[in-house]
């Protein structure tokens, strides 16, 4: 029986700007015969991913790449840090507001070293020049996310959006 879990994530967020409850729906995993998820792994991955989204939002809003360190590694961190550097150079910052996530874990590698999930996410993106909002746009994206385990948490290694 398929269950739809709705989780209200009251996470400790880095910025008061993002101190709003993320709307998170989690679909049952669809793993296509790879390794089965351990009981606690799925919720841990979802929790860590949602927290990484919030940290990404804060980092892009404050142009602070250090905020990425706890949640992103590898390619995902490289690309986000490069964006932050460019934003600083061209005098803008960006905000990702009111994200609504619909998540499904689709792959857990046989040796347990990576998890892939799909996030159908909606949010409002703002581009700001100092405190002036240049534009706000509602976005709908399908994000492919790969997380790998670190010492105490899952970190985002690949993060790529495409249009819904």
């Amino acid at each position, binding site marked *: 029986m398929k269950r739809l879990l709705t989780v209200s994530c009251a996470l400790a967020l880095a910025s008061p700007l993002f101190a709003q409850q993320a709307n998170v729906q989690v679909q049952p995993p669809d793993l296509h015969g790879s390794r089965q998820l351990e009981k606690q792994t799925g919720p841990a991955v979802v929790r860590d991913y949602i927290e990484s989204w919030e940290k990404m939002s804060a980092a892009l809003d404050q142009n602070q790449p250090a905020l990425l360190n706890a949640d992103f590694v590898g390619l995902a961190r490289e690309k986000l840090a490069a*964006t932050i550097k460019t934003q600083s150079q061209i005098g*803008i910052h960006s905000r990702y507001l009111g994200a609504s996530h619909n998540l499904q874990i*689709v792959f857990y590698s046989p040796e347990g070293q990576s998890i*892939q999930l799909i996030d159908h996410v909606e949010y409002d993106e703002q581009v700001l020049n100092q405190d002036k909002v240049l534009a706000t746009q509602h976005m709908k994206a399908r994000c492919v996310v790969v997380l790998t385990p670190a010492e105490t948490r899952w970190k985002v290694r690949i993060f790529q959006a495409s249009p819904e």
Partner: protein
Amino acid sequence: MRHARVPFLAGLALSLAPLALAQSANMNLPASVTAGSAFSIPTSGSGTGVLYLVGPDQALRRDVQLGSPLSFAAGDLFNAGLYLAVLDAGGSATSGTLAVLPAPTPGRISFLAAPSRVPVGLHNGISGSAYVFDAYRNLITAPVPVSFQLTGLAAPAQNRTVTSSNGLAWTEIDSASKQGAAKFIAQAQGVSVTRVIAEVPGDPCGLTISAHPDGKSLQVETAPVRDCSGNPIPDGTIVTFTENYNGMQSTADVPIKQDVAKIDMPAYNGATISVASGVVAGNEIRWGGR
């Protein structure tokens, strides 16, 4: 009355001026472009403006001559993703969404093969996960056929072809029956990555001992210790001998040397001697006629 209307109309004209400017400055965004490709965005209006393309993975700023297309060279916008495009023209802005899609041709494979050492003859003992990227390190989410091949020195190659889903193709494959280094290759449209897997002997199979008198002792010795595929168990693997006699038990851990393990044990008439290695138990012998 007429004097009063003039400042009113003048004020109205002034207040409408930025609006007219804002309405005239516009852009015609393509629905999507391929990452790293050249493209242009037609604009309308007059004067100058600034275009921003902002997404989590890249941000760009370009000065715009309104009314002329804004050209992006190959390689300017190279990260796939969803971008907010903002045309800021004299204090008013128009915005839209631009999707940047991965290039369809693989340029790089990230291949995780595990484990690095695996016992021979293990069903689905080796796994490989291949993430397929384009030349700009964007995950190619469209299906791509990925071939996996496991080749060893003493075993025929095993081949699998898997179509990627969401950028990932993975497989599980049996380890070969003979020990040695095997090459595990993932390949997609001419791009390949090789990992080396050490296929090592499995647990001992058919572990047996024999005993021969040697003065007041027994020389207890294993037959050559091999796994179930006939591969010799490496030197140094521990074999445990246990002797039980009259309620007493003595054990000895002996490393395999040149395929066999041997030890001298007391020759008690009626003693039983057994052998084991790891989780594998061998035979038991009774010494003497009692």
